[in-house]
């Protein structure tokens, strides 16, 4: 596949602190890539290196096949960026902020800006300093999307957005993807990545721990299943069922955790009279935790 972002042993140290340690990352054209890790794990450091705000101690990165240091201007012309701790010129109105940004990019299709503004319900006529965090975030999103960049890099994009807008944002990301353009989203919130991304890279203490397909991760994700039976059952009836663990029985109610397909446990349960089955949409939290260990993450 066609790689849009490639890093080779990308490392960044500050004195003895290694903010990034030999990160090898590939993001493909047309995908939505999630970059997941707790605060301070090196997500923003990676992004800031890609944009040439900071320089790698060793290793290198390329975007669109261009060197992140030598060809940074050409790269930035084709990239949209939403910073994590975004600060806009607070005395300018949203409209002025966007006009300035558009001018520095040599002009944008203003009809598209108006369209994005309407979709997000952004307030552009008041000074930024009078706006709520959510309304500032909308302006940040518009400036990241407005020049239809080939790659959109967003650091914690949905922070401050209400759920309805997250849905709109989701659709905007899908449209970029449908265009064959690429999206790179960093987040410390798992459900966000799970919902939006095709693949996810997990970073911890500056090291890329793993890169996984989100669909494949879900296959391996743990389901919590609850069976209500017509008569009391015993835990021993289910202990040998493959993939089943953490069995708890209270009278006629059995709960267990199943990895992957629930087929075997459903067939085992069918031996009894089943009155009700309760399952939960699998979350990747457990998978995520297995990479981090407990108590070492602020993922939700």
């Amino acid at each position, binding site marked *: 596949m066609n790689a849009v972002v490639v890093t080779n042993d990308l490392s960044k140290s500050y004195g003895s602190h290694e903010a990034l340690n030999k990160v090898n990352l590939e993001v493909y054209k047309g995908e939505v890539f999630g970059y997941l890790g707790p605060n301070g794990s090196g997500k923003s450091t990676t992004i800031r290196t890609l944009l040439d705000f900071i320089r790698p101690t060793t290793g290198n990165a390329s975007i669109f096949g261009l060197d992140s240091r030598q060809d940074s*201007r050409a790269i930035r012309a084709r990239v949209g960026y939403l910073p994590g701790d975004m600060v806009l010129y607070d*005395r300018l109105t949203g409209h*002025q902020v966007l006009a300035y940004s558009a001018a520095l990019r040599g002009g944008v299709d203003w009809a598209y800006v108006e369209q994005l503004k309407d979709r997000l319900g952004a307030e552009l006529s008041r000074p930024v300093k009078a706006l709520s965090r959510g309304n500032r975030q909308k302006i940040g999103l518009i400036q990241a999307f407005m020049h239809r960049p080939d790659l959109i890099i967003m650091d914690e994009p949905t922070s401050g957005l209400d759920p309805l807008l997250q849905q709109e944002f989701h659709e905007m990301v899908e449209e970029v993807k449908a265009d064959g353009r690429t999206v790179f989203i960093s987040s410390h919130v798992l459900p966000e990545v799970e919902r939006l991304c095709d693949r996810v890279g997990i970073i911890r203490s500056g090291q890329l721990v793993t890169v996984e397909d989100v669909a494949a991760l879900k296959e391996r994700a743990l389901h919590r299943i609850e069976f209500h039976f017509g008569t009391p059952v015993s835990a021993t009836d289910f202990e040998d069922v493959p993939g089943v663990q953490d069995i708890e029985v209270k009278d006629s109610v059995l709960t267990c955790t199943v990895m992957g397909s629930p087929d075997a446990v459903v067939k085992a349960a069918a031996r009894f009279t089943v009155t009700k089955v309760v399952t939960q949409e699998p979350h990747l939290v457990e998978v995520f935790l297995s990479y981090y260990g407990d108590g070492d993450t602020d993922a939700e």
Partner: protein
Amino acid sequence: MLNNVFLKTLWDQRRSLMWWGIGMVAISLVTMLFYPSLSDAPELNDILSDENSLMKAFIGDIEDLTSPEGFLNSQLFFLLLPMLFLGFAVTQGSGAIAGEEEKGTLDLLMSSPISRRLVLAHKWAAMLAAIIVLVVATWIGLAVGVVAVDMDISLLKVAAATLSAGFLGMAFGSLALALGATTGRRAFSIAIGSVVGVTTYLINALTPAVEALEPARYISPFHYYSGSDPITNGLHLGHVGVLLLIATALYAFATVTFERRDLGV
């Protein structure tokens, strides 16, 4: 007005620049209005006697306080105006890069397809333009004052002296800009810029009173600002050249250091 970094920077400063301009006009004009009463008091020159040679450190090396040139030099051009230009320029220069960096707006600015070199060039040009605006405002105040009190002095010479203060500001503003672009720290740039400004001012002001230290004045930008007495003699091209060379060299230094370093979060 928001077409590029230069215009945007001036646009941001429009209010503060307006108030600074009004202030400069007012200070110049009001000072001038005192001239008639001072010029009628020749006994003032008694403080310039040889026993009082240290006085030169505070009002400059002046022969006659009651002449138009002596009045303007001692009341405005020796201390007040250069210090105001210094303060304005150091504030502007330190804010140029370090200000945006500390506020956090530099990230979005630098995500545009513009080079750091270009951002710095626009910021520097905006600072120089703002200083020129203040030069013009100061000259207007002085010119109105010259006409109002019927002072016998060429407005061109007044312009020369005011412009010289502007060049001094450019040198120190460029110092603060270079410090801010190199370190990303605004308060540090203001502090160092001001300390260097005041120290070199004192070197220039005090060395005439201490003969052994006389050569030290040549390291002070203030010497190149006032040493040739522009209000009497017009601009000294060599001295102007030194001030502009300092400004340009510091700007060139900043382009190198700003290009090479990591931008702060």
